[in-house]
């Protein structure tokens, strides 16, 4: 264990590496990790020896499954479906306007109970809170759920 600790604490050969303390994004155990980043890229994930849930342990997903963050498939701009039936990149301004119109039109046509929100168990709590607030403050209904039923 002591050796492992030393290895993990070895100074990184290349300078310019930043450590950011955060929590693993996979299961619900809540392992503390340090993201190692350089030139604005994640180059590694280390388990935190003082993480209250994991005490320095980490599984294969938490340790290695982070390249998706920089994957070329990441969405970089908002998309809207146009008359050709396909999704096209657009500005935030237009996407937000189309989304706002989409919800308002449905509300006008079918009433406020016709809108439903599905929140995530992956996003931060602040996102979940604002999802339910969007539905409750926006429409006065409780038509909101998360994915824990599936």
């Amino acid at each position, binding site marked *: 264990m002591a050796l492992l600790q030393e290895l993990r604490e070895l100074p990184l050969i290349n300078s310019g590496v930043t450590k950011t303390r955060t929590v693993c994004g996979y299961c619900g155990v809540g392992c503390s990790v340090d993201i190692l980043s350089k030139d604005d890229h994640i180059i590694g994930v280390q388990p935190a020896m003082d993480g209250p849930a994991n005490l320095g342990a980490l599984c294969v997903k938490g340790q290695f499954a982070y390249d998706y963050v920089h994957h070329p498939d990441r969405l970089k701009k908002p998309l809207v*479906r146009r008359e050709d039936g396909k*999704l096209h990149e657009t500005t935030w301004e237009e996407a937000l306007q189309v989304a706002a119109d989409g*919800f308002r039109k449905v509300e006008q046509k079918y009433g406020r109970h016709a809108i439903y929100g599905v929140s995530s168990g992956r996003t931060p709590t*602040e996102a979940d*809170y*604002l999802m339910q607030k969007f539905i409750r403050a*926006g429409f006065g209904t*409780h038509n909101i759920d998360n994915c824990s039923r599936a």
Partner: protein
Amino acid sequence: MSNPLSDLEKADVYFCIGTNMTECHPVAATRMKKALARGSKLIVADPRYIKLAEMSDLYLPLRVGTDVALLLGMAHVIVRENLLDHKFIEERTNGIEEYIAHVKQFTPEWASEITGVPAKDIEKAAIMYASADKASIYYTLGITEHICGVDNVQSLSNLALMTGHLGREGCGINPLRGQNNIQGAGDAGTAPSDYPGYQSVLKPENREKFEKAYGREMDAEKGITKVTALELCGEGIHAMLIDGENSVVSDPDRAHTEHAFGKLDFLCVIDIFLTETAAMADVVLPATAWGETDGTFTSTERRIQRVRAAVTPPGEAKPDWWILSALANSMGIQGFEYDSPAEVFNEICSLVPIYAGVDWDLIDGGQYQWPIPYKGHPGTPRLHEDGFTNGRAVLRAIGYRDPAEVIDDEFPVWLTTGRRLQNYHTRTQTGRSSGIDYLAPEEYLEVHPDNVQKWGLTDGGWAKVTSRRGEIKIKVKSTPRSPRGTVFASFSYAETPVNILTGSGYDPTTHTAEMKVTVVRVEPL
């Protein structure tokens, strides 16, 4: 979880049921392994001979969907052997007489008939669990993803209550949550029945509080669940906003889900990739990923922890809190003038009693586990130490019922589903991580070697699996991990969409789908 993760190192006896802990919560399993190395005992109930079963002192290979019968048989033995904690029962529970009368009819022999577990092993498990000083229960979706999920959980609760294995170190009823922040999502009020902090929408005082906070009138009745909403798409529900969920692949009965989304007038999806679900949307809003976002997650042990941005998001991707605020502002919805996630978190703390004792600055070190009812309170690592929130706990008389679908001549094989170590959910993330893709590039059906031979399959060859809802093509892997007559596959791969097959039924109370039991036909291809 009723107890903290540190208690995983403190029990004398562990009863793990419906949890594949070494694959799905590997770090939690690591902590339990330490206790096992020191001589603690492990009982495992699972239809599959998983790694945890290999590690166990007593393995109960129950047939899928028969947990209630097993737990009734165990309760019967605990009563018969007089291993009840009379003091705990008297001080903290109601309904013991009716409960004892109820379980008297369910002998281990009766339970054995249904579960397939030898009666003597049911007796042994009951005695090991009940006579231990510190005994804890761990479970996951193997307990809840059934039409009788609530019955399963209440049956486990009965065992803990009758033996007093609750509210103490190394005891408790501990569901390990599957997603990094599914606890936080519940805490934040993303449910049709509760405002943030599990404050019921049915109570007038809660409605008043949130009407005041949000500046508008709210319904006095509950909303509908996601399951009901999907059924009502096109007939009552006409627009959806989905944040970070790939329902098309993760939900049961994929054809039904796709059909439902197809009937919406308007679908808006917030995500980091163009998932199968996002591809059906009218508007897709690009979100920041883990490592690019500041905020909080709440873990399975109710620990509130900070997540921090380490790198810049790609292109114009934005944090979810920013996207939702911008959308609300575009629609003229009041109260979304946020400049940071800290402001959002502090608003939660102001409205949620279990978060009342913290704020954004206080949680920086991650030492708080809710409830934290007031500033200066140290948090609550272990629940129910001094009593139950609702007064006394009730021992409930629960009966066994068959799963929604039972094998017959047409569909003679049980299919159960779950996760694998290397992959997460629908692989939108792990499928895009090169090392993981190398370790586990494709899905396979786990079939017992005897069944491989009997059904004319070949190890590594292809099979067609058919249920009442559809069929898939999948590679076969011969393994004694699967019991005879039961096959297993994970739901992670869009290329092998196992959830085309599932969706036989739902728990009537929670609307959780019976993902763990589907009847199928397996044929060589």
